[in-house]
């Protein structure tokens, strides 16, 4: 094929790709094409379908409908290995490096160089060294991965992708862990790769960087393609507006008016690599929403408040008195409760029944030498009625429950210790609409009864529809606290992406 013709055929063509997970459409007929040497940005809110799309391209998921053309030929990317052989490489958010092995061992994993029978270690180290030099990195080729910083690991991932002669590189949020200087180096390398004809898909929440490095930008929202435009003509404000921009489609109960007294004061709370100088107040009966993009540090904040993470600085005051939360036991005893975002990972025990889950945190109250199982069961019965938990019996293991019912049990569990303040983290993730509405109603009735609530959610509508005030976080800091009319999707997105507020 002559070079001119080859250049005209797009490297990758995505045609009407859709993906459904158990009946839910997360990606809806998305099409685009990508030429050699092009850097293609994809932006969108959490859950817009970005990850699903790149997982389809790199062979991790299979599309429900639609087709992929690579170098003009229709292809089925069966698995990551197939994609790899075609020259498609994904640099994931979470690294795929083996910590106990060295840099060069990782780079040549699965494609080791050999001289007759034995591994040619010297050649591999030499090649690694030249790769790293090319990337202007000072990482030693024989350093163990576990001794490297996160940014250095990112470099190794990049070197690994380069070593296998990629045609298409997919970068998923590559700059979240990098400093500005390292980002500059990364962009420099990307431009070099671009020169040599490598196409790149670049996913990021940092809109300024997207504008800086990408040729084209695609906006996804709720799994649908909103627009593809040249980044020259697309300002960062337009990007943010396009990412949101929808009507509030869910019915929320009317907001209750918070009382005057402050129950929780957080001052300058810091956790290394996680939180920096976080300060806010929470009033009695208030719902304080926490918005931000994934990795903004909201869950980490909640975990610090309940003593799972150790703070390095700052004070926490409950009802005006400073408290030292050493561990969750202490936090719960002093009137805090936490509803975890990771329901099955840290919220409930799937091998336990309803009763045993609900009383797990508050078990002390049901125990005097022996457990008062009758009281436990009565209490559980009460929650089952109140929250309309559907189950064959109180002893049914939670693994047989739907997400919504599991969430209700998890909620009952955090409430049974009679908290004054409840930290709710992604309360409606993965549950159906009906259960969502119920959750909103429960939360609303609780704050009316004087409970105070920190509501962490990545669903904008939820934060906007429920909160009295909204705290927006970005990279471990609070960038803004919004009230009244300021609480809208655009404003939140501006603060969340760092276009407004303290960066």
């Amino acid at each position, binding site marked *: 094929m002559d070079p001119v013709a080859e250049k005209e055929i797009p490297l990758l063509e995505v045609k009407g790709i859709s993906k459904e997970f158990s009946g839910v459409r997360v990606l809806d007929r998305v099409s685009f094409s990508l030429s050699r040497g092009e850097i293609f940005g994809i932006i969108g809110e959490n859950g817009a379908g970005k990850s699903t799309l790149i997982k389809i391209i790199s062979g991790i998921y299979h599309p429900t409908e639609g087709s992929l053309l690579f170098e003009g030929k229709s292809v089925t990317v069966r698995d990551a290995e197939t994609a790899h052989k075609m020259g498609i490489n994904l640099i994931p958010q979470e690294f795929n490096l083996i910590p106990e092995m060295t840099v060069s061992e990782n780079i040549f994993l699965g494609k080791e160089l050999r001289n007759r029978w034995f591994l040619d270690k010297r050649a591999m180290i030499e090649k690694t060294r030249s790769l790293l030099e090319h990337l202007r990195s000072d990482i030693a080729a024989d350093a163990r991965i576990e001794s490297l910083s996160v940014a250095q690991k990112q470099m190794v991932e990049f070197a690994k992708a380069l070593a296998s002669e990629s045609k298409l590189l997919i970068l998923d949020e590559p700059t979240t862990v990098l400093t500005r200087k390292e980002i500059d180096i990364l962009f420099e390398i990307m431009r070099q790769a671009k020169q040599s004809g490598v196409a790149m898909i670049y996913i990021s929440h940092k809109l300024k960087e997207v504008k800086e490095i990408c040729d084209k930008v695609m906006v996804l929202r709720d799994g649908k393609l909103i627009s593809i435009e040249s980044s020259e003509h697309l300002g960062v404000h337009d990007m943010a507006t396009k990412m949101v921009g929808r009507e509030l489609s869910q019915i929320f109960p009317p907001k209750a008016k918070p009382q005057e007294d402050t129950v929780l004061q957080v001052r300058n709370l810091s956790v290394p690599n996680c939180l920096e100088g976080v300060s806010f107040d929470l009033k009695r009966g208030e719902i304080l929403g926490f918005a931000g993009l994934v990795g903004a540090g909201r869950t980490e904040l909640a975990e610090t408040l*309940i003593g*799972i993470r150790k703070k390095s600085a700052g004070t926490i005051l409950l009802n005006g008195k400073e408290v030292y939360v050493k*561990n*969750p*036991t202490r*936090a*719960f*005893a002093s009137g805090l409760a*936490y509803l*975890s975002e990771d329901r099955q*990972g*840290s*919220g*409930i*025990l*799937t*091998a*336990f029944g309803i009763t*045993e889950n609900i009383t*797990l*945190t508050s*078990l*002390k109250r049901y*125990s005097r*030498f*022996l*457990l008062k*199982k009758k009281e436990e069961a009565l209490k559980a019965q009460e929650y089952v009625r109140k929250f309309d938990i559907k189950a064959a019996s109180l002893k049914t293991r939670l693994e047989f429950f739907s997400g919504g019912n599991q969430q209700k049990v998890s909620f009952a*569990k955090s409430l049974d*210790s009679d908290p004054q303040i409840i930290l709710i983290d992604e309360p409606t993730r993965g549950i159906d609409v009906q259960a969502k509405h119920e959750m909103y109603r429960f939360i609303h009735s609780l704050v009316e009864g004087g409970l105070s609530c920190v509501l962490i959610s990545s669903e904008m509508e939820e934060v906007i529809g429920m909160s009295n005030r909204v705290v927006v976080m970005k990279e471990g800091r609070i960038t803004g606290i919004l009230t009244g009319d300021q609480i809208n999707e655009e404003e939140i997105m501006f603060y969340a992406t760092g276009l407004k507020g303290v960066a």
Partner: protein
Amino acid sequence: MTIKLLLSKIRRIDFEKYGPLFALAILFIISAIASPYFIKTRNLLNILRQVSYTGIIGLGMTFVIISGGIDLSVGSMTALVGGIMILTLNHFGGGVSAILMVLLVGILLGAGAGALNGIIITKGRVAPFIVTLGTMAVYRSLTLYISNAGEFRSNSNLYPELGMGAFLEIPNPVWIFFLLAILCSIILNYTKFGRYVRAVGSNDKVATYSGIRVDRVRFLTYVLVGVMVAVSALLLSSRLNSISSSNAAVNYELDAIAAVIIGGTAMSGGSGTVFGTVIGAIILGIVNNMLNMLGISPYLQGTVKGLVIIGAVLIQKKKKRS
């Protein structure tokens, strides 16, 4: 359709709970047919007495394994605690008060040895397998050192009555085994600690997020097994009126762990019953007894025991998958 599904579910739950009991019943019937001597009361009581030493340790081991741990040091610990018990007995003259001192010293020592395991495991964040493999060597070596590789011999005439004696025809060790089994079953099912042990073994992250002090729960399971070791050491040393530093309680850890596993407790933690462990211990005892009575070489008994353990785990795995 749904009724069928329900029925199959009920059947599965029942089998999970009573599987070991069925196995015991079948084994009992086969043994009774194979040898008429088997169902003689004396033989049955003898089997129960023989399994009570490792059975008692198995009760404590049940908690350790349900919480997600393991303790390999219990055999060596039994020898060490038993040896020091005899030294204490001789020191205080061998009378009733001496025996009470033995009980006190033994329980403190057992709890202390278990606490040492527990502290290294929880504070040092070292895998239980490694820690207890290490203390297994340490405890045995200390036993050998203290006795100069010989035997701890008691001078008391009263002491053996404890381990040799019987109440209502049933040997004392069997009484103690069963009483402790009831006690442990109550602890596991009707106390906060028992609930926490299961929660920690089921998912320690959820346990942490529920305000359970996971490390403390784990630590206490090792202390508990240490106390059980002390009771077992008391019964063993008083029956023999001596403890051999090199031979006493060798491989007890294997029998104790095997009883727990055969009893249906998952090696991965989270679930299990004390009742099952008692059954598991008795199954092991009957297997040994039958092999003896059928005149099978004692050298082959290990092979059979090993196959029984592996078989039990295989059956459990199958149950889970189906």
